[in-house]
């Protein structure tokens, strides 16, 4: 689960990390009002709160949003309301949001913070070696994505022990890498230990401070932050759960998420219902190789609740972009008959006008097949997925 920048900043502040003074605003008037509270004379930063990186390179879809990006530098109070007016309720598209972008519902108004030097800090989990790793890079000349792509050797990797945290030696190593003077090392130690503790205690899977700035006095300030919390650990993060922002999701994605399923949408025309991400990936590959394209897939995982399974199937059957449905279930936990019953119950409720091809295998295969065989819908049962895909694509073409 991702949370907004302003929420993450409040969170790391509790761990002793310095952040610029800032407040959230939902209207232009409010933006103007809180601006004085965070800084008397400015300048200020106005930052669109959507859960995406590269906001400073993003563009708004609407003309009325002006030419500015999702992050704006403002020097006068009068401009604040005008800029806020342009950003709020408009659609920001970044390299990470996809072409549809996200509607900006709130702004973070921050004091502008003058710094002498900026650097990147990332805390991630190295999946191969299964250890937490601290990533550090100097951002004097370029941004972190360019460094990662072109000169990855300029990123310092520091493996961390989950119990020991960041050692004094590692603090010195990072200090030397960034070029922090000896007398400011205590600030660096406090900063690094703070983010480590925040990472562990919030069950984060990724924490990025991009960038952190060093002021003339040697203070280290988190200028921007992104935090992703492990979905599987939310049961022990009661303070983070309420920060979940439904605006960041498509309606279908949200319903799937709430039922414990996975839903992904693309721009094709075949809707897939599967149990297992691997099958979804394999099917997408197969559909593509036969000249088709995937509209969306729903992964029912090991679902065992009949109503939930039906609500998942409804997401695909009511998606207007779907011109044909492919269902591939290899039952382990999930029983094929449950899926068959779900298909019929949704079909009787919303109708079924597109061709459906079904491949069942595993737990309760025959029960599932016989339920569908006796129904009066355009459902084909196949024993070979490849043939099934060809058959479905043909039927979709005939329909057009």
């Amino acid at each position, binding site marked *: 689960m*991702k949370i907004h920048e302003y929420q993450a900043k409040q969170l790391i502040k509790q761990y002793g990390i310095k952040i610029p003074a800032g407040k959230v605003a939902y209207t232009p008037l409010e933006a103007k009002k809180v601006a004085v509270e965070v800084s008397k004379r400015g300048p200020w930063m106005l930052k669109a709160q959507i859960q*995406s*990186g590269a906001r400073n390179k993003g563009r708004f879809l609407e003309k009325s949003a002006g030419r500015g990006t999702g992050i704006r530098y403002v020097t006068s109070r009068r401009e604040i309301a005008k800029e806020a007016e342009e950003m709020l309720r408009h659609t920001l598209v970044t390299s*990470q949001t996809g072409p549809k972008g996200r509607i900006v519902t709130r702004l973070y108004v921050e004091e502008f913070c003058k710094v002498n030097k900026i650097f990147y800090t*990332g805390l*991630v*989990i190295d*999946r*191969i070696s*299964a*250890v*937490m*790793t601290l*990533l550090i890079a100097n951002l004097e000349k370029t941004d*972190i*994505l360019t*460094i*990662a*792509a072109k000169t990855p050797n300029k990123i310092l990797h520091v493996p961390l022990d*989950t119990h020991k945290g960041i050692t004094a030696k590692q603090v010195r190593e990072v200090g030397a890498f960034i070029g922090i003077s000896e007398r400011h090392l205590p600030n660096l130690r406090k900063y690094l230990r703070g983010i480590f503790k925040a990472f*562990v205690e919030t*069950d984060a899977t*990724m924490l*990025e401070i*991009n960038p952190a700035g060093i002021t003339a006095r040697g203070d280290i300030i988190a200028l921007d932050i*992104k935090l*992703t919390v*492990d*979905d*599987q*650990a939310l*049961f*022990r993060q009661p303070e983070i759960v309420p920060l979940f922002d439904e605006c960041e999701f498509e309606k279908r994605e949200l319903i799937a998420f709430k039922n414990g399923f996975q839903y*992904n949408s*693309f721009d094709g025309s075949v809707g897939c219902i*599967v*149990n*297992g*991400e*691997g*099958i979804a*990936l*394999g099917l*997408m*590959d197969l*559909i*593509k*190789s036969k000249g088709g394209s*995937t509209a969306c897939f729903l992964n029912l*995982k*090991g679902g065992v609740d009949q109503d939930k399974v039906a609500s998942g199937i409804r997401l695909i059957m009511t998606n207007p972009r779907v011109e044909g449905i492919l269902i591939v279930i*290899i*039952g*382990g*936990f999930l029983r094929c008959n449950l899926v068959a019953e779900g298909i019929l119950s949704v079909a009787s409720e919303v109708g079924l006008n597109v061709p459906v091809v079904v491949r069942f*295998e*595993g737990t309760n*295969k025959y029960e599932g097949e016989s339920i569908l065989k006796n129904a009066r819908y355009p459902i084909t049962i196949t024993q070979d*997925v*490849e043939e099934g895909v060809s058959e479905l694509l043909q039927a979709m073409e005939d329909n057009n």
Partner: protein
Amino acid sequence: MAIFVDNKTRILVQGITGTQASFHVKKSMDYGTKIVAGVTPRKGGEQHLGVPIFNTVKEAVESTKATVSLMFVPARQVLSAVMEGVEAELETMVCITEHVPVRDMLEIKAVLRGSKTKLIGPNTPGIITPGQARLGVFPINIHKPGRIGVVSRSSTLTYAAVIETTLAGLGQSTVVGLGDDMMVGTDFIDVLKAFHEDKNTDVIVMVGKIGGQFEEVAAEYYKTIPNKKPIVAFVAGSAVPFGHDMGYAGELVSYGQHTVQDKIDVMRKAGIIVMDNSNDIHKELQKIISKC
């Protein structure tokens, strides 16, 4: 012979009394799997599915000489359940449970390092040695004994790979699901090693997927094996648009831009036969077997 489990392996089940556990353990027993004990705290002394229940793994091991554990415990208890198994020096633990927190997995990996125990999973369909032992939630009707070893990073594609071996008229020596999560107890290397040491495995089917670098690491390992058994592989996810669901620089910084095609290239260079289509695996298997 098979790898990790056979019909002589004595198995205990952690969390045996749950509904899903009972359903699948019963099926496994009917299959011939030697389930000798269950472990459920505070239910020690009771019986379930005809086997004795113990409060701790240690007690179960002392009384029944179990060497392998099958785990159906809730996600938040997996860490302590693994620690119990490691302390009791179990050989293998198979964790079916999904949704184990990442931080717990970090701890688990640290506990496993330097221990005698290997963990398969979490979030895996388990291990099955057809005709001998079924540890997990595998559908039963698709497997048959044979000489193909199957190892997969994707639960459901494991089943698809098994069906491919069946289509080729062949059976499986052992089928291992590594688990769908980004961090799992055992990766390809340990399983490839075991299949190479197993006299009853002639060919290996390996299923990888987008994300991580498990396939690349396995390919590097495969290069170093002196007497290689043929590996027929498939890597799922080439139709997924690159960068989908990858909003964070850290993702890129730490894992690099590894597409499915990159993985396939590395694997082919190492001598692994990678199919473009998973439905062609059976044809390749037939080709290899006819040469033997």
